């Protein structure tokens, strides 16, 4: 029986109460402060949620009111969200690195009346928007540091709300239980704003049923034991964090651990040694790149040892995935490698205890994927969407494969429509977009099928394969299909390429804009004595253009002839979310980029050798400036013959 079928466990606040009653001393949440992991037991969790809810009630927070949290992952921000839900309100987490204009839109659209801000930095942002937010009644801050200079009556500290809550609780002892009991599975628990690759953000309403039933389905595929640890370090506004740190943690009685601050994540990960890890491809790639850089700097003996065992591990992994048995020598080698290399590397990365790791949101390069798997890290793929409570399909332990995203999670039905679009039905499908019924009707069919907007197919084993965003799939002038993301991902598998944008719809051939990876290309340049000052300078070096040309040629070798990039250029700045070129979850906003770089595209297809680019740069505080420069366009001589076994 599902938890949502019982009126005692059908909302998140009820699950907090359940956990506090069943295991009051168990670790509900942890936070690293002052260099030490501090534990909030389930009883503490319940007390905080109740007191804060009481405090908000005393300030006039009512059913249906919206509470926004903004900041890095902190227990208080999670507690505040559940408190709002306990009072029948809705939590609206927002991205802490959003610029002011984005925040205004979301906070106004969501009708937020209370903002819980992590610290002074976020308070400053909220205060600067106060006049544009007519519904805002209070700003609660968690970290009092630096707040001595503020006397705005709209401000109050988290502690003072808790204090008021304790007084309110004494006067109204039955209030909390009654309010929580009024909640039902179908109530909206949170509104998750999609960062939107097109147009303004949309608010996806997720019910308690969505959160709880999706977590239950996931737990059926992946073992989660009570007390399992994971690190809550991904943005709180991202639906995936809510699904794990709230949904899954409450359902499975697992412990969410908040790192000390964003800079300490890697070290905190290692200290904690979590039982499960969820990370986007970017982070896995970073781990591999950092390790590569460290290996290059190590002593020759260490470097050779690492490289020998790495090659052995990857060879064996390939053999195993082809279904071949390993020889005795190989087995012995792996055992030695386990002691000398694999174990220590897993330990350094903080993945020693992780029983499973997931990557999702974008494809991960097969080389990166194989590296982690060969080192004994159970890395698997997951596929989801905000509108589907972050989870649609995931790979089980025995089904790991870099090319698919696994089978649909239990009780979720997935079909591919005649245009190739992935559609699904199940308890994870959201309630609709907040105040945007028309868009909702375009997204969910009358009989309840959610259109994901992704093009995909099922392979022979019944595993889902995602190709691209359905609307991005176009045609070259010769009529062959053009899936930009598919090409871009092949390009991005190169460690030197951070971002790539491919063009080709209604064009005679494919061309690509490349943003180099400053770290790896920088190290590469230093090794060769190529002096550079900045990203822009580095991107202009002839040697770098040649290097990237070779990398593109390698990617081209794995692509059919018509899908190969024929021309390319190196951007003189990184693609930035602040410049609206990417979403906050780092997905390229294709249409916007195409407009912004329109003359580059003209130059690509006009056969010119350079293009003038004027770009507007937005600084973190919202100031803007423009930058004009000439960017060279390069031709790929010709792709090498396809002769490698991909």
């Amino acid at each position, binding site marked *: 029986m599902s938890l949502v079928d019982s009126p005692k466990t059908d909302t998140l606040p009820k699950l907090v109460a359940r956990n506090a009653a069943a295991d009051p001393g168990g670790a509900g949440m942890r936070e690293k402060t002052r260099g030490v992991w501090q534990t909030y037991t389930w009883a503490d969790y319940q007390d905080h949620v109740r007191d804060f809810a009481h405090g908000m009630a005393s300030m006039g927070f009512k059913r249906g009111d919206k509470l926004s949290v903004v900041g890095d992952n902190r227990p208080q921000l999670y507690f505040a969200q559940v408190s709002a839900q306990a009072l029948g309100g809705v939590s609206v987490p927002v991205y802490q690195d959003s610029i002011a204009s984005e925040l205004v839109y979301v906070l106004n659209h969501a009708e937020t009346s209370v903002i819980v801000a992590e610290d002074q930095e976020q308070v400053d942002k909220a205060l600067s928007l106060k006049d544009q937010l007519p519904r805002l009644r209070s700003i609660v801050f968690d970290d009092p540091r630096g707040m001595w200079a503020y006397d705005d009556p709209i401000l109050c500290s988290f502690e003072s709300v808790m204090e008021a809550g304790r007084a309110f609780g004494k006067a109204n002892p039955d209030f909390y239980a009654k309010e929580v009991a009024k909640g039902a599975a179908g109530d909206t628990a949170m509104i998750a704003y999609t960062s939107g690759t097109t147009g303004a953000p949309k608010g996806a309403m997720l019910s308690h049923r969505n959160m709880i039933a999706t977590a239950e389905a996931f737990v059926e595929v992946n073992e989660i034991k009570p007390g399992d640890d994971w690190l809550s370090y991904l943005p709180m506004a991202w639906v995936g964090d809510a699904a794990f740190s709230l949904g899954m943690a409450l359902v499975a009685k697992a412990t969410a651990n908040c790192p000390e*601050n964003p*800079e*300490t994540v890697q070290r905190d990960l290692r200290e904690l040694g979590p039982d499960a890890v969820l990370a986007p491809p970017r982070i896995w790639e970073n781990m591999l790149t950092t390790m590569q850089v460290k290996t290059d700097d190590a002593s020759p003996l260490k470097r050779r040892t690492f490289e020998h065992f790495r090659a052995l591990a990857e060879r064996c992994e390939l053999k195993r995935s082809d279904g071949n048995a390993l020889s005795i020598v190989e087995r012995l080698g792996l055992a030695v490698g386990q002691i000398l290399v694999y174990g220590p590397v897993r330990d350094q990365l903080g993945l020693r205890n992780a029983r499973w790791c997931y990557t999702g949101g974008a494809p991960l390069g097969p080389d990166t994927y194989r590296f982690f798997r060969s080192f004994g890290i159970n890395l698997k793929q997951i596929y989801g969407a905000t509108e589907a409570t972050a989870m649609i399909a995931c790979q089980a332990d025995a089904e790991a494969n870099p090319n698919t995203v696994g089978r649909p999670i239990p009780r979720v039905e997935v079909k591919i429509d005649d245009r190739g679009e992935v559609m699904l039905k199940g308890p994870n499908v959201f309630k609709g977009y907040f105040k945007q019924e028309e868009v909702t009707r375009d997204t969910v069919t009358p009989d309840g099928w959610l259109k994901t907007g992704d093009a995909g197919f099922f392979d022979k084993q019944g595993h889902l394969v995602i190709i691209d965003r359905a609307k991005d799939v176009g045609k070259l002038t010769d009529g062959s299909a053009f899936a930009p993301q598919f090409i871009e991902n092949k390009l991005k598998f190169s460690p030197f390429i951070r971002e790539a944008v491919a063009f080709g719809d209604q064009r005679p051939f494919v061309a690509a804009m490349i943003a180099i990876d400053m770290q790896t290309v920088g190290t590469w340049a230093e090794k060769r004595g190529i002096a550079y000052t900045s990203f822009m300078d580095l991107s202009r070096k002839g040697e770098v253009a040649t290097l990237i040309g070779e990398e593109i040629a390698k990617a081209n070798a794995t692509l059919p002839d018509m899908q190969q990039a024929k021309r390319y250029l190196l951007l003189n700045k990184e693609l930035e979310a602040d410049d609206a070129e990417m979403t906050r979850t780092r997905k390229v906003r294709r249409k916007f980029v195409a407009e912004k770089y329109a003359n580059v595209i003209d130059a690509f297809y006009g056969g010119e050798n350079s293009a003038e680019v004027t770009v507007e740069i937005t600084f973190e505080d919202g100031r803007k400036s423009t930058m004009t420069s000439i960017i060279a366009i390069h031709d790929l001589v010709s792709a090498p013959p396809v002769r490698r076994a991909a």
Partner: protein
Amino acid sequence: MDEVSILGVATLSKKFGGVTAVQDVSVDVPRGGILSIIGPNGAGKTSLLNMISGFYKPDTGRVVLEGRDITQKKPSDIAALGIGRTFQNIALFSGLTVLDNLMLGRHVRMKSGVLSSVIYWGMAQKEDIAHREAIEEIIEFLKLQDLRKQPTSALAYGLRKRVELGRALASEPKVLLLDEPMGGMNQDEKEDMARYVLDVNQERGVTVVLIEHDMGVVMDISDRVVVLDRGRCIATGTPDEMQRHPKVIEAYLGTSKSGGRV
């Protein structure tokens, strides 16, 4: 010296051979404020701080902390009495970690003897934990969490300045002497440091004496400004008064309009 002063120097003079570094300088530092000392190079600003913190012995004059004459005391005793300082040229132990540097700054507050510390038992253990907590507060305050175990030699310049401020704070000073805490920093780092200085002053209630060349910062955060020129104090007052004071404009900011950096 009146009630509101925490620190006072009276007719302080110091000569190095034939060179007069400081002559007859008298300054009252109001409790709980931020007082800046400005002046051209060689005006005697650092010498003045060195006399307050006991590194130099003045030829004449007195230094008084909370009504107590500390003129002849050793630097370590002065630190224990509540005057902390940072240096113009960062003076950290480069081989030690950030944490160890901060713990060293705490040394004047440690009471346990060698023996009990070695055994790490009873009071010594309790004391150690209390000190470690105080240090953690400073780490959090200055946002150094990710650098605890880093040797200071590996840190960027701006961060080392921040660690030095932390080390000065670790001795729980009543008065903090900062010798060009923003020297050599870029604009962002300066703003951060100014923020920390203000927070130290307001949140921790520490009186600050600041030597700084960036007039923007001085005018923004000081309650009072003292102007030195060739060893003499030529003016004292609020930042506004100092900006208009003809002597100050002549001595420090330059006589021509274009020379002003205000």
